[in-house]
């Protein structure tokens, strides 16, 4: 009886693993195919797409072409600058709003909470025409500044929402003790609250970063040329131009994929913990 149970159990486990492994393969296969083929000669790409590059077929010609013919390095640093500044501001301003809304009672608190919460559901993209008009009246079209401003506005609502949940958990005694000692409110926020919510800040940072790094819409509309392209737009334009040059296309895709994958593997724990800890439920 016991033996039977055990066998039944392990065959069930085997089934579960089989399903999960096959789906994992489906999830990874396309990425894998692109990366291995970017290191192969044109002939080998077509002859045997699924083979790993061998000594005969290995070549870096695609990467050379991409790096020579496009400004990949520039696009990459554009993306880095935009993403980093946006994340920093989203986290700082988001935490400040979240703190003010959860800690203080003041007229307008509810109104501000509602307006900010609406931003979680209503995509900022719908206001694109207004944004373009605003940016052109500020002379910011085709600058990275316009992108940074848009991404701060885009990232704030969710950041405020998640950070509020964490700030609510900070024990009251800590704040009261500081107030009794005569510490100012601003100092309380920066020296007590910010260090305490640091783990959640990592979660918010990852959540904010992905849509910014991967966005095509706003770069396409606000900063489409003059070396202000982000990496996503740069790849899109490059591939559009060299669509028949498979080596270059595969290499540019690989160059765009790999940094994100590395970053993801480094931060995946934080991200998944954030998702499963209920911060976004």
């Amino acid at each position: 009886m016991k033996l039977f149970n055990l066998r039944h159990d392990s065959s069930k486990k085997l089934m579960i693993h089989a399903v999960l492994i096959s789906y994992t393969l489906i999830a990874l296969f396309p990425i894998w195919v692109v990366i291995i083929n970017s290191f192969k000669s044109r002939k080998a790409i077509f002859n045997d797409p699924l083979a790993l590059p061998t000594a005969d077929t290995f070549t870096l010609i695609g990467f050379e072409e991409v790096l020579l013919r496009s400004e990949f390095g520039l696009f990459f640093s554009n993306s880095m600058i935009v993403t980093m500044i946006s994340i920093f501001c989203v986290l700082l301003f988001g935490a400040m709003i979240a703190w003010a809304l959860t800690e203080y009672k003041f007229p307008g608190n509810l109104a501000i909470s509602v307006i900010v919460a609406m931003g979680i559901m209503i995509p900022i993209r719908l206001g694109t025409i207004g944004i373009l008009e605003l940016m052109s009246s500020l002379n910011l079209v085709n600058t990275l500044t316009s992108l940074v401003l848009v991404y701060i506005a885009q990232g704030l609502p969710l950041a405020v929402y998640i950070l509020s949940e964490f700030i609510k958990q900070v024990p009251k005694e800590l704040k009261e003790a500081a107030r009794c000692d005569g510490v100012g409110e601003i100092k309380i926020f920066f020296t007590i609250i910010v260090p305490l919510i640091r783990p959640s800040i990592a979660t918010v940072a990852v959540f904010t970063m992905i849509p910014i790094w991967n966005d095509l819409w706003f770069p396409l509309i606000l900063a489409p040329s003059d070396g202000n392209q982000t990496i996503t737009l740069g790849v899109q334009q490059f591939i559009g131009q060299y669509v028949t040059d498979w080596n270059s296309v595969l290499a540019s895709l690989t160059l765009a994929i790999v940094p994100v994958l590395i970053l993801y593997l480094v931060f995946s724990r934080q991200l998944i913990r954030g998702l499963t800890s209920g911060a976004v439920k």
Partner: protein
Amino acid sequence: MTIIRPARPFPWHILFFISPGLFIYLTVSVYPLLDTLWLGFYHEADDGQLSFAGLNNYSKLLFNAIWSDPFWNAAWNNLKFFIIHMLVQNPIALLLAVLMSSSKLRLRSTYRTLIFMPTMLSVVIIGFVWQLILSPIWGISENFLYSIGLGHWFDAWLGKEGSALITLALISVWQYVGMPMMLIYAALLGIPDELQDASVVDGSSGWQTFLYIKLPLIMPTIGMVSILTFVANFNAFELIYAVKGALAGPNFSTDIMGTLFYRTFFGFQLQQGSSTMGAAVATLMFLMILLGVVFYLFLFQRRVQRFAL
């Protein structure tokens, strides 16, 4: 005796905390949205002069065949896009989450990390990757289908009017399945073991435990996943643009609201772009999303009890 209270000092610190973020949010997000909604009521002459036009733009979009055919086509395609996500993405996500949450499963965090991976990548990149894989020139998918004996099924799916939209929706499903999976998985982990143990002791099978204990408890999460899918789908643009360009070919069969908005605003081929008509399209997208959110808040959120666990 009256107690003289010192006048409270003005709470400068609140202003300090709120104003930088709120200022940017109001000027770059709220104001442009209102501006866009407002602009939808105007008509733009060829010389750029704006004049109030009332509901003219909307009646054109909804009833004048030149505008309304593309509009209803895009709205209908968008609905199909959403339905495919609901029928394929969310059930797969549920299945994966349930399997992953089964007790004492080894390697579960590895599965989680790997299955979530495509979600991280840019839709643009994903669009090109699949374009290459499905390409008849390269022949990866064709050879694969032949090897499992389904070769005659192969077709240039992305290029055919009848199958392009479905193919694109499935690519999007492939990319985003990780998100609902993660949210449902988190909800499943939140169910106390005692509840499941109790149902097992009462003699329910694994399937019954799932159907009568777990599923009702994760219903709020499934509702939230649905509304998130809805908003994301009716706001989608990148995948279609990356694979099919702004014209959403073949013959507009993959046109959705996002691409229609882009074309109306920027113009294409012979048609000039119009910011006022673009604003009207954006307003209708806004109303669709609002309708979905309100529907969710009032019907779903209210009917589904939140179990205090």
